């Protein structure tokens, strides 16, 4: 669980770009990829929902539970100190991975959803008043819509939504026009989970800052697939989920600028988040512990740290470049299928393809692909307003990770031909 040094990432990244990307080698690290589904090799293309876990992460969890399990920040015994060190090291690993200035800016939460709710309730609820505005985009996942609707109900603030263009990009003109001195918070997806659009986050953050509005960037779909540099982006909050980046479920990260976090009241009360408690008065612990009430998901944190070490060894820029190649290959292959239409054709896209096929419902596509061992998502992708925008009840979505291959995309295409065979 040694703290990761940034220089290592740069080195491995250079190595990664020199040689061609060896997905077959990385696949060997993921035991689940050997599974057979109905007797057919698993083709796992549902990475935007959750990613698979590599051996180093599985082993880190196993090692923690078999040789290192103890509670943190309280024991004076050996194992407790060891667990605390591992927990703290993971925080530093994440800080460096995101290029945050200070490890105290990294708060462990259950996932991106909890991070957004924490900001809504701890930051928003105390500051927003009737007439204030929160700006989101039409691309958002429900988890970046509902917490703000709840906050609006609590405070009398108003939710404003920047519209999405036909190609799946946010209209920047409309977004900029929505921003004004009543805008008290902006919350936007870095990458759309449903369409794959990569938002021009830095520009959108600058625009919001011009009217003095802090920005939460939802990194659930970006952190696992592209380099995130928080110093450069200058967003005020950033969230992501561990399970979408090769780590366990139930662990995620909220980044917040230190001055903002320090000014925010705790989200939940309990152990670990206090420095002194009497029945008359409680003094809260410092950031980030103030936001980490109760015994945290220690194994999850260690697993997440290990997952990021693993990603760093491969190099996030190499991953991005390889996935871009997969995206181009898949896009071209899918568009050759008669009646197939891709929803979301933004210029900048992550490795996510949402599509519809003639008048075959995505749910039927999903069932038939599943029979061929191909796992995709069919549905509204927790983005019902976006589906409404494109006048489709649902889409089929294939989403790639660095362990996917072009031959798996060929399997996907073949399986879609089975759909046409059934519905032809």
């Amino acid at each position: 669980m040694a703290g990761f040094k940034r220089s290592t990432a740069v080195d491995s990244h250079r190595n990664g770009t020199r040689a061609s990307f060896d997905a077959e080698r990385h696949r060997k690290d993921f035991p689940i990829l050997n599974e057979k589904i109905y007797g057919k090799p698993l083709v796992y293309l549902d990475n935007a929902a959750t990613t698979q876990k590599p051996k180093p992460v599985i082993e880190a969890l196993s090692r923690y539970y078999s040789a290192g399990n103890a509670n943190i920040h309280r024991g004076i015994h050996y194992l407790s100190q060891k667990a605390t060190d591992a927990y703290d090291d993971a925080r530093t690993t994440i800080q460096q991975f995101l290029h945050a200035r200070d490890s105290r800016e990294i708060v462990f939460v259950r996932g991106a959803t909890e991070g957004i709710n924490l900001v809504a309730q701890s930051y928003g609820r105390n500051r927003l008043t009737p007439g204030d505005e929160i700006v989101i985009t039409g691309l958002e996942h429900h988890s970046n819509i509902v917490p703000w609707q709840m906050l609006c109900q609590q405070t009398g603030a108003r939710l404003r939504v920047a519209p999405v263009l036909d190609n799946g990009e946010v209209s920047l003109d409309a977004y900029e026009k929505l921003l004004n001195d009543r805008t008290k918070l902006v919350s936007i997806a870095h990458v759309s989970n449903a369409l794959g659009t990569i938002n021009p986050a830095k520009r959108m953050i600058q625009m919001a800052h011009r009217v003095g509005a802090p920005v939460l960037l939802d990194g659930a779909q970006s952190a696992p697939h592209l380099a995130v540099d928080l110093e450069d982006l200058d967003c005020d909050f950033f969230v992501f989920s561990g399970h979408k980046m090769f780590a366990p479920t139930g662990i995620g990260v909220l980044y917040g600028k230190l001055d903002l976090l320090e000014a925010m009241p705790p989200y939940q009360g309990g152990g670990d988040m206090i420095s002194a408690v009497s029945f008359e008065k409680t003094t809260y612990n410092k950031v980030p512990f103030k936001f980490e009430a109760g015994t945290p998901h220690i194994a999850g944190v260690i697993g997440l740290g290990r997952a990021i070490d693993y990603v760093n060894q491969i190099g996030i820029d190499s991953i991005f470049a390889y996935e871009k190649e997969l995206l181009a290959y898949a896009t071209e292959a899918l568009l050759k299928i008669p009646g197939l239409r891709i929803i979301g054709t933004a210029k900048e896209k992550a490795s996510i393809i949402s599509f519809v096929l003639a008048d075959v419902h995505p749910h039927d596509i999903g069932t038939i692909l599943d029979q061929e061992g191909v796992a995709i998502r069919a549905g509204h992708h927790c983005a019902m307003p976006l589906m409404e925008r494109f006048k489709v009840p649902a889409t089929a979505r294939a989403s790639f990770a660095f362990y996917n291959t072009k031959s798996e995309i060929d399997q996907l295409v073949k399986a879609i031909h089975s759909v046409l065979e059934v519905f032809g």
Partner: protein
Amino acid sequence: MVSSELRELYQELILDHSKKPRNFRALADANHTAEGFNPLCGDKLKLYLKVEGDVIQDIGFEGSGCAISKASTSMMTASVKGKSVSEAERLFHEFHHMLSGNDAAKMDLSKLGKLTVFAGVSEFPVRVKCATLAWHTLKAGLESDGKVVSTEE
């Protein structure tokens, strides 16, 4: 090559009803309506019933959904039209039983007639709700008026 399970699921009759749904229209003189919704996949339907005395005189539906849900709705409307409310309720129970009962093999499915084409859906647990949505919506329509039925409640 399409597997035999898939051929069993997507039988000709099901594909036919999903492509050319019967009774696919709003009823201007409906006296009961109900909406059905499956938030997991976005299946949506609105059911119109004209019930006179104890008889379902006319029935129609509108909406969008997967092949299974559309075919099931279409065949449900065809099978309850002209039947008494209690007969329709009996069919509801038998259909439901066929798809969710563990003792389906022992069941007498003869009353279900053509509806037995949906028996194969029980092999696809995530699709059972697609097939039963129409029937739950029918039940809601007969019992109360204008209620939205969700598969997730």
